C-alpha cells in the first residue's frame, strides 16, 4: 500500500507557522481564510498497512504535540482494456 501520513500540530498547540501563513494571506488580497495550520506529509509504501499506526506513533509523529491521519495514495486500479 502507498500511504500518505498527514501530520499537524494538535489542536490548541501553538502553531506559529500556521499563524504566519494566515497573516500573510490578506497581504496578497486573500481574505476570509482562517484557522491555517502547517504540518507535513510523509509518503511511504508499506507491505503491512496494519502497522502504520504504530509507525506513526513511534517515529513519524510525536503524539504529545501532533495528530496524524493516514490516507491511501494507491493509484486507481487499472481498468480492463476492452478488446
Amino acid at each position, binding site marked *: 500500500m502507498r500511504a500518505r501520513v498527514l501530520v499537524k500540530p494538535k489542536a490548541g*498547540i*501553538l502553531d*506559529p507557522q500556521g499563524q504566519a501563513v494566515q497573516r500573510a494571506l490578506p497581504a496578497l488580497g486573500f481574505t476570509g481564510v482562517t484557522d491555517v495550520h502547517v504540518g507535513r506529509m510523509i509518503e511511504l509504501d508499506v507491505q503491512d498497512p496494519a502497522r502504520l499506526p504504530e509507525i506513526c506513533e513511534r517515529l513519524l509523529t*510525536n503524539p*504529545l*504535540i501532533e495528530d496524524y491521519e493516514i490516507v491511501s495514495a494507491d493509484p486507481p486500479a487499472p481498468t480492463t482494456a476492452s478488446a
Partner: protein
Amino acid sequence: MKFGVIRFPGSCDEVDAQLACQRVGEAEILWHADRDLRGVDAVVVPGGFSYGDYLRAGAIARFAPVMVEVAEFARAGGLVLGICNGFQVLCEAGLLPGALLDNANLRFVFRQVSLVVVSSDSPFTRACEPDRPLSIPVKHMTGCYYAPPELLRGLQERDQVLLRYAPGHNPNGSLRDIAGVCNAARNVFGLMPHPEHAVDPLTGSIDGLAIFQSIRAAVADRLAV
C-alpha cells in the same frame, strides 16, 4: 569522576561540553554508534543538530545505539544531562517529560539570558546559590517548552522545573518560562540554555560551571557511599 559526552553526526557542542566537564573532572567523547558508555559516571547529551534534525529535532538520534545504553544508565539512576539538542533528544526518547516546539517567533534566538534557579534540590543544581540568577546563553530554533496541562501541573507539584527564564528573558515562548526540567527520579535533566558556553570569563559569564560542579558533587557523594 569521568563524564561521557555523546557525539552524534551533526552534534556541534560536544567539544565545548567536554572542555566544560574537564574543568571539574575527566571527560571523553562517546560515539553514537557504540553501545558502550565506557564506565563513565555521568552522561552529557550535547547541543547541535543530530542527524540533521530530520523529521523533528532529536527524533532520529533517540534511536542511536548509544541511546539504548543511556536509557539503561538512566533507569539505573545514572546522571544524564541534555543540553539544547540533547534536551530535545531526551524528550523524544521519553527520558524527560514534555516536548520542544519551534520558537514562538519562528526565529533562531542567540542571546545571553538570565535564569532563575527554581530548585537547587537536584544533582544538577545543588551547587547553585539560591536567589542568584544564572547568566547563560541560548542559541536555538526549537526551544519552546511544551507540556499538556496535566503534565505541567504534575511537573510543578513534583518540583521538576529546575530552571526558568527570568521575567522578560523568555526567548522562545516556553510555557511558564520553563528553561529546564528533570525527570521524576531527578537523575535526568534537560535545558535549552548552554551552561558549557558559560565557563570562562572570556565569554562573559562563568555561571554555567555551577551545573557541572553540581554533577561532580553529586557523583562524589554517590561514590563515597
